C-alpha cells in the first residue's frame, strides 16, 4: 500500500503532542493558578547552560566584580535566610565551564547574598551571569541576568521562590 509521508493521522498526532507541550512548563498555558501576592521568579531561557550541580561554597572567586541579589518567598515576600545560591559566569579566568568560575554562597538573614569574582566578560555574544537555586525546598530557578554594559563591575538579580 502506498502511504503518504504526511497524512491525517500523523497530523493529529503531532498537533496533539504540540498542544500538550504548550500546556506544560516552559510555555505554561495550563500552569496552576498561583496564590495571590508576590509571584515566583521563573527560570530564564538558557539559565541552566553549563550548570555544574553543587558548586563548592566559597568566600570569593576572584576580585573586582560583584554578583549580588536577594532571595524571598513567593506570596508573602518574606526574606529567606541560609538559602544556597550557585553562581557561575565566563570571566577573565576562562569560560563558563571553567571550574574556578563556579561557586556557591548562602543568603544572610535579610535574604541578601553577594559574591566577588573576576570581571565577567561577554560570552556567546552577551556579558551575563548565571545563578541557580536548586536545593529542593522550593521550585528550582535558573537565572541569566545580562549586564547592560560589558564594562559593568557588578550585576544583581532577585529570586522569589515558590515552596514545593
Amino acid at each position, binding site marked *: 500500500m502506498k502511504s503518504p509521508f504526511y497524512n491525517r493521522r500523523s497530523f493529529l498526532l503531532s498537533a496533539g503532542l504540540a498542544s500538550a507541550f504548550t500546556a506544560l512548563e516552559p510555555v505554561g498555558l495550563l500552569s496552576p493558578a498561583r496564590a495571590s501576592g508576590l509571584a515566583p521568579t521563573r527560570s*530564564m*531561557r*538558557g539559565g*541552566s*547552560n*553549563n550548570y555544574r550541580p553543587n558548586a563548592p561554597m566559597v568566600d570569593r572567586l576572584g576580585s573586582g566584580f560583584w554578583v549580588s541579589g536577594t532571595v524571598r518567598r513567593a506570596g508573602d515576600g518574606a526574606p529567606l535566610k541560609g538559602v544556597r545560591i550557585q553562581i557561575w559566569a*565566563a*570571566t*577573565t*579566568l*576562562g*569560560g*563558563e*565551564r571553567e571550574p574556578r568560575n563556579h561557586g556557591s554562597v548562602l543568603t544572610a538573614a535579610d535574604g541578601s547574598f553577594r559574591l566577588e569574582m573576576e570581571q565577567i*566578560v*561577554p*560570552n*556567546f*555574544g*552577551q*556579558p551575563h551571569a548565571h545563578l541557580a537555586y536548586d536545593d529542593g525546598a522550593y521550585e528550582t530557578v535558573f537565572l*541569566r541576568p545580562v549586564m547592560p554594559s*560589558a564594562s559593568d563591575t557588578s550585576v544583581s538579580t532577585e529570586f522569589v521562590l515558590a515552596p514545593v
Partner: protein
Amino acid sequence: MTKSARRAVAIAMWVVLAIVMIGPILIAANSPYLSYRNTAYIIGGFAGIVGLSLLLIQPLLAAGYLPGARAITERKWHRWVGTAIVACVGLHIGGLYITSPPDTLDALLLVSPTAFSVYGVIAMWGIVLTAALVILRHRLGLRYATWRLVHNGLAAIVVAATVTHALQIEGAMESLSKWGLCLAVIAATGATLIDLRLIRPLFARRRGWRNHGSDARKQKAGE
C-alpha cells in the same frame, strides 16, 4: 582614461577592498577577550568573522567588478569563495559547539535567549540551501532564469541575516570596523543585485529593441 590612470584606479580598488576585508580581522585578533577564551572558541569566532568578510568579495566576483582579473577567473574564484564560506559556517558552529554545547544547541533549536542567534541560524540555512542548490543545480534541471532568481534571493537573505547577526554580538570584533565591514557587505550585495538584475536587463532590453528596429530598417533598405 589613460592606461596608467586605469591601473591606479584598479590598484586603489584592491587596496580599499583589502583594508575593509582584512582590517576588522586584524583588529579582532588584538581583542583582549581572546586571552580569556579557549582555542575552539577563538577558531569558531574567527570563522564567523572571516565568513562575514568573504561576503564582501563574493558578489563583486560574481558580477566581475574586480579590475585586473578576467571574468572567467572571477567566476572560478566565486565558486572557491563560496566553498570557503560554507567551511567557515561549519567551523563557526563546530567551534561554538565544542565551547558550549547547550548554548549552541539552544541557538540551533531557536530557543536561545539572544535575539541574534535566530539571524545566525537563518543565515546558516540560507547557506546550506545555497550549497545544496549549487550541487543539485543540473540534476534538478533548473532553468538559468529560475536558478538566478533563487540563488540571488538566497544571497540577499544570507547577507541581511548575517549582518544583523554580527552587529548585535558583543565579542572580539571592534565596533567601528565591524560596522564598516557590514555596511560594505550590504552595499556590495545591494549594488550587485540592482546592477545585474535591474539595470543591465533593462538596458539590454532597450538595446534589443533598438537592434531589432535597426535590423528591420536594414532589411527594408536591402529590399
